[in-house]
């Protein structure tokens, strides 16, 4: 009886101690930091994030937010969470090894964690800002922004320079897949593989934006909400999705001359009026842009005619089998 009592008391105390080591709130769960909590939403971004952080030079090469906020930012509300057990899970939000001794920080931001902010980039505003008064015929759209990545393209066709400030011809093949219309599943078929030069790059991080928006020009670096909106957590996909995977921006003709030498906006007609890409429901290049040139035999027209005559016919001039076997949308029938 006495032994049993001792065991019960020991187990009780052990459990009581163990409870202290269990996570009591989301704040004590590894990787669970959320900007969306009511308390965090009330905070100004600058109350935690310093701009620039002290490590900007080594981490980025330009003034940037390149590190987690310091202990002070968390301690005012989460002081007790620092002292839960020997290895507080709270510390593992930023440190690679939770513990009382200083441990290295994860690279900021942690790419494997879900994103909580969407980036709003108004193409229409930027198109207006880089517009020129020039009307002469001799020139083509020449470069605009002062840009770290700016190169004078003497050999390349200069007509894309406007957009090429941010979107350059890709040097390595990105991950890609067909962009499927809503509710459609891809249909297996050909093994067409585009090359890197089919694609254009997209800016990531603050590097491109801060060249003009670091200070002075709104939204400035300290105005996070000027570009970022809190969203449901999501994992950023590096996969480029295209309706027309066979379109080659750098295609050349028999003589080796570039074929697609027009201004980007000649085809990307929806872009110049767009304030947020997420609101764009359809392709930014409508088929009518393609049809202005590719409306001859052996290209779109003949394929559309064949498609109208025989449903099993698969369009392959622009599309891979995943898209080419689907019914032609109304936009193609005009």
């Amino acid at each position: 009886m006495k032994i049993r009592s001792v065991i019960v008391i020991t187990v009780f105390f052990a459990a009581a101690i163990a409870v202290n080591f269990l996570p009591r709130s989301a704040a004590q769960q590894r990787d669970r930091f959320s900007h969306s909590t009511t308390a965090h939403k009330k905070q100004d971004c600058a109350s935690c994030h310093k701009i620039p952080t002290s490590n900007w030079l080594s981490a980025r090469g330009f003034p940037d937010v390149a590190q987690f906020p310091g202990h002070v930012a968390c301690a005012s509300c989460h002081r007790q969470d620092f002292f839960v057990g020997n290895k507080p899970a709270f510390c593992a939000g930023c440190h690679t090894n939770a513990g009382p001794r200083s441990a290295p920080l994860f690279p900021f931001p942690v790419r494997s964690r879900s994103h909580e902010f969407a980036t709003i980039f108004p193409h229409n505003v930027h198109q207006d800002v880089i517009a020129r008064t020039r009307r002469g015929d001799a020139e083509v759209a020449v470069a605009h922004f002062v840009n770290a990545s700016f190169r004078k393209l003497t050999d390349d066709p200069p007509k894309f320079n406007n957009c090429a400030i941010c979107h350059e011809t890709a040097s390595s093949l990105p991950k890609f897949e067909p962009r499927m219309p809503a509710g459609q599943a891809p249909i297996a078929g050909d093994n067409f593989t585009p090359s890197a030069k089919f694609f254009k790059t997209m800016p990531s991080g603050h590097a491109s934006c801060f060249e003009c928006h670091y200070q002075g020009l709104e939204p400035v670096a300290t105005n996070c909400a000027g570009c970022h909106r809190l969203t449901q957590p999501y994992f950023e996909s590096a996969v480029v999705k295209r309706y027309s995977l066979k379109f080659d921006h750098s295609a050349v003709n028999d003589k080796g001359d570039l074929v697609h030498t027009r201004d980007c906006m000649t085809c990307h007609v929806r872009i110049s009026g767009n304030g947020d890409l997420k609101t764009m429901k359809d392709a930014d290049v409508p088929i009518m842009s393609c049809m202005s040139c590719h409306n001859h035999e052996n290209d779109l027209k003949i394929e559309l005619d064949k498609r109208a005559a025989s449903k099993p016919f698969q369009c392959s001039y622009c599309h891979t089998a995943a898209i080419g076997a689907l019914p032609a949308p109304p936009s193609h029938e005009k």
Partner: protein
Amino acid sequence: MPAPQKPQTLQRNFGNNSAARRLCVSAVVLFTLTCALQLAAQSTGVLEVNGRIKIEGKQERLKRKRFYLFRGGLAENKSLIDRIRAAEFVSRDCFYCRMNASPEFRSWLKAEDCESPFCREITAEDAAKVPEFKAAVEKGSRQYAKKPALAREWLTTNLSPQLRDGFYLQRKKAIDGLLAGMKPLQSGMTDSVSVKAIFIDIPIKPAAGKSTETFLISNLAPFEIGTKSYVWACEVEIGAEKKAVRALPVPESGKKADKCEVFVRDILACDGQGCAVK
């Protein structure tokens, strides 16, 4: 025997529920059908604005110019036309003149017909020649001491606000004033090669017996060409059947352009003392 009453009641209730359910389902189907029919009935059109214009026999190409599309014609948009007529835009030259920009700065803009310093690359030579650029680089060199090359690469971050984006902002403010809360249906820009602004997915609601609807296309903010500025407000009929094409007429002296209001004004230019007609 009271026992059979219960099933009867249940049956009756079930019968009532069934009728109600049928009614609900019918209403939902009817509503869906109506919506589908409405969607099917809403057709869309395409408009192409041709940015090639002729001024005194010389062809000009309006590259990278923004146009706004409004529902209704000149009569329906009379208040907007009146505001455009009354509006006074400050010319690029006058704006920078009033901002006390140096002659070198204004020459740099003029050399490539730029509206702002974001227009083209500011070379090391430019940064040495133009006092405003030079000052910005010096300020940046102190600020980005750890990375001196940033001072020139990020030159615009140290320019004065008026010279940096003042012209764009005052234009934007003036356009917002003209719109006075109106929301254009769409806006689009001419490209620099074909010099056309293409508007697609324009929802068309033709009046009974008509296959097209009247829209208004305008640049709102004047385009500076030579010594004059131009604002167009032109009607265009857009239908679902074929692409509408709208040219921008330049009225000859004393003549009025067809279905168009074209406001042509002399551009005020900076002459060192102030702004005057060129």
